[in-house]
């Protein structure tokens, strides 16, 4: 039963991810990406990681993709970027194949060791909170700072020159 759902959601996640990268239209890709996120969230839920599953939906599928769609739709269809495939593809494929091989190797190795059993409350909100806000609170705060710096940097880079542009545009 569980295996069935695992393969269902896992398979769907892979398929939707493939569809996402093969669509030429940004909005269509975004929709498929959302579907992919939902499948991943389902996988998390099956691992009893309810909090992470919900966050996956709330943050990624819900918030980020809504922003993404909004901006894409608002600005209209972006110009199609011609990828410089000739030089990039051999390099990318080599790296990908190497990574995949490493992954497969690790997976085949770990299979014999078996998974350590975890308690039911492992993925609960309390558990996650304790890990983040008690055990690793310094790293958590530092990460927060880093993101803040990134946001400020993005604002600085994206700001418009002051001359000749009406105030208030694009603040939505």
């Amino acid at each position: 039963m569980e295996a069935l759902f695992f393969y269902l959601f896992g398979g769907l996640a892979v398929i939707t991810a493939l569809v996402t990268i093969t669509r030429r239209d940004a909005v269509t890709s975004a929709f498929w990406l959302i579907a992919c996120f939902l499948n991943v969230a389902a996988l998390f839920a099956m691992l009893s990681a309810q909090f992470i599953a919900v966050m996956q939906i709330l943050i990624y599928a819900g918030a980020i993709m809504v922003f993404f769609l909004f901006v894409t739709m608002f600005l209209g269809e972006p110009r199609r970027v011609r990828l410089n495939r000739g030089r990039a593809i051999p390099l990318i494929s080599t790296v990908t194949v190497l990574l995949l091989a490493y992954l497969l190797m690790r997976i085949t190795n770990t299979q014999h060791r078996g998974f350590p059993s975890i308690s039911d409350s492992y993925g609960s909100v309390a558990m996650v909170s304790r890990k983040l806000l008690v055990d690793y609170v310094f790293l958590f705060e530092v990460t927060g700072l880093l993101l803040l710096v990134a946001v400020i940097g993005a604002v600085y880079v994206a700001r418009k020159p002051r001359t000749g542009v009406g105030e208030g545009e694009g603040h939505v």
Partner: protein
Amino acid sequence: MPYSIHGPQAATGGKGSRMRGAELWYLKEIFRGMYVTARHFLTNVFHMADMPTLQYPDEKPNYGPWLRSRHRLMKREDGTPRCVACQMCSTVCPSDCISIVAMEDDRPDVEKRPETFTIDLLRCVYCGMCVEACPCDAIRMDTGIFEIAADSREKFVVDLDFLLNNTTDGVKP
């Protein structure tokens, strides 16, 4: 220009550009509005019979004798049209919806009668001027029929026969 939330039109406060919180949220007015609608709702629930609505096809409003409804042509005692085809009605008609072709009548006291008398009900504006103009009281708009429907344009053009027999119960030519 896309929606601007900072533009001058955003300042709805009236007194300066800044609105107070309660004003921005319209809280007081919202509650007043809710009170008004609730009052109407409850009044109507408990006094359903007092609502002004008429159950139209079942209950008909009394429009009174001044209602101008679909035309009819009056008859003489012998059943022939009272109309003498003088064309006063079609002359005065502001929408030019009446067309009459006159013909000679053999009877010496009649002399002239309509050969055809058609009214295009789609063009008619129901102003009632034809009734005012008629010197023989031959055309009236007192049938009480105002729900005029048909499934083709042609059927709205009514002829002499139709108009002569266009009566409602209780109204006899």
